[in-house]
């Protein structure tokens, strides 16, 4: 494993890009699934709980989910290796430094944005994934575990909603740099292809960020204010 990760700088970046893009594809599926939460209450409850059951019992999806856990771990481990090595390669730094002008702040702070995402993931997995698997959940009318009601009650707490929004803004900036950077790491070189991929990356980032931010706000307003 260590020689595998000690391979070239370019190879490490390819692994980073592969795991990052895989996580991004997962996010598309995750968002699409979560959009069911926006359905009328009765339908949303039944359908979301059925969907949750399917996602935790289907064998193929189980395999994909293990690849997903591995990807997150590999992505985080690589990010640590890359960030530490880069710190060393940068040399001592400058007494007077105006380099912030020549690149985007989020492209320089992927590690910090990623750490925010990681902290969020721990809370998120604990509250929903762990609860669903190991907690004692109520059952819905169809006899499925009622994750829907857990989700709805979690977002009744304004601070919890705000925490989610902060995490998704961090995710948004992480992806704004990350997705396009990943394509560049693969070698998207003719400028026409590069521009097309920039368009796709940015569009996908906006879609994911707006989508994920919208859901907790929607639930808070619909189930706890109205």
């Amino acid at each position, binding site marked *: 494993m260590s020689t595998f990760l000690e391979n070239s*700088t370019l190879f*490490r970046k390819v692994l980073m890009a592969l795991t990052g893009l895989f996580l991004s594809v997962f996010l598309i599926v995750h968002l699409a699934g979560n959009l069911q939460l926006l359905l009328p209450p009765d339908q949303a409850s039944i359908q979301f709980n059925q969907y949750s059951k399917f996602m935790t019992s289907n064998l193929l999806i189980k395999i994909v989910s293990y690849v997903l856990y591995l990807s997150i771990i590999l992505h985080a481990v690589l990010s640590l290796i890359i960030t530490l*090595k*880069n710190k060393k390669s940068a*040399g001592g730094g*400058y007494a007077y430094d105006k380099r912030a002008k020549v*690149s985007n702040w989020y492209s320089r702070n992927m590690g910090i944005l990623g750490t925010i995402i990681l902290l969020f993931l721990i809370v998120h997995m604990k509250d929903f994934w762990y609860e669903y698997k190991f907690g004692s959940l109520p059952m819905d009318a169809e006899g499925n575990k009622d994750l829907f009601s857990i989700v709805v009650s979690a977002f009744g707490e304004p601070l919890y909603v705000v925490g989610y929004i902060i995490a998704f803004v961090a995710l948004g900036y992480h992806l704004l740099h990350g997705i396009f950077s990943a394509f*560049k790491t693969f070698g998207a070189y003719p400028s026409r292809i590069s521009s097309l991929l920039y368009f796709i990356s940015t569009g996908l980032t906006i879609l994911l960020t707006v989508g994920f931010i919208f859901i907790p706000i929607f639930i808070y307003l619909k189930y706890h204010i109205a």
Partner: protein
Amino acid sequence: MKIKLKIWRQINAESKGKLVDYSLDNVEEDMSFLEMLDLLNEELILKGERPVEFDHDCREGICGTCGLFINGRAHGPLAGTSTCQLHMRSFKDGETIYIEPFRGGAFNVIRDLKIDRSSFDRIMSKGGYISTPVGDAPEANAVPITHDQAESAFDSAACIGCGACVATCKNGSAALFTSAKITHLAKLPQGKVESRARVLKMVEQMDEEGFGHCTNTLACQVECPQEISVSNIDRMNWEYNKAKILGKGD
């Protein structure tokens, strides 16, 4: 015009350096930045002090020897301009100017503002050339090549190896330099032949020298005096991934 200077002074690679204050009273706007430093050195020599050492050679923007970190930016405030092409009219009367050496883990300060960039030479020696001995320069029209191809290869070949890309990179990555050399040759029929072996060897040397990972912040292309595009890095990544998957091809 009058200016104040804060210049990095360091005896050798082992010693610790520090910023030292100087001031100059009769600087002219039309002086180049390096002429301003010459003026300072004349004064220092007359006073019996050790002059400030800095790298320079052609002083016409083509050799890549000069390279100073001026007011927090590689090669100073102007875009597409090497240090020797910068003039004092780009600064205000009475301004304080910070001058530091280019930094990067693979660049060591030799003395004051002079740095060791031999790591670039070692990367070049691993494949920044065509290994077939072709004798005299062949007839230029013997190899069919379009005008656009030639221009595009020349855009990559314009890299003067000054190291501004490394100096400005938060990761101390030499991706822009190395990729420009790889891409220049990959774009031409003569260079294509060895391109897979070349990219593997040059990247290996780049890593061995201790340069960091490229994380595509794109700062390098902003500071490059020759305006080398980061699309060269995309091309290097492509060539590298291809070579990793398909093998060296020889």
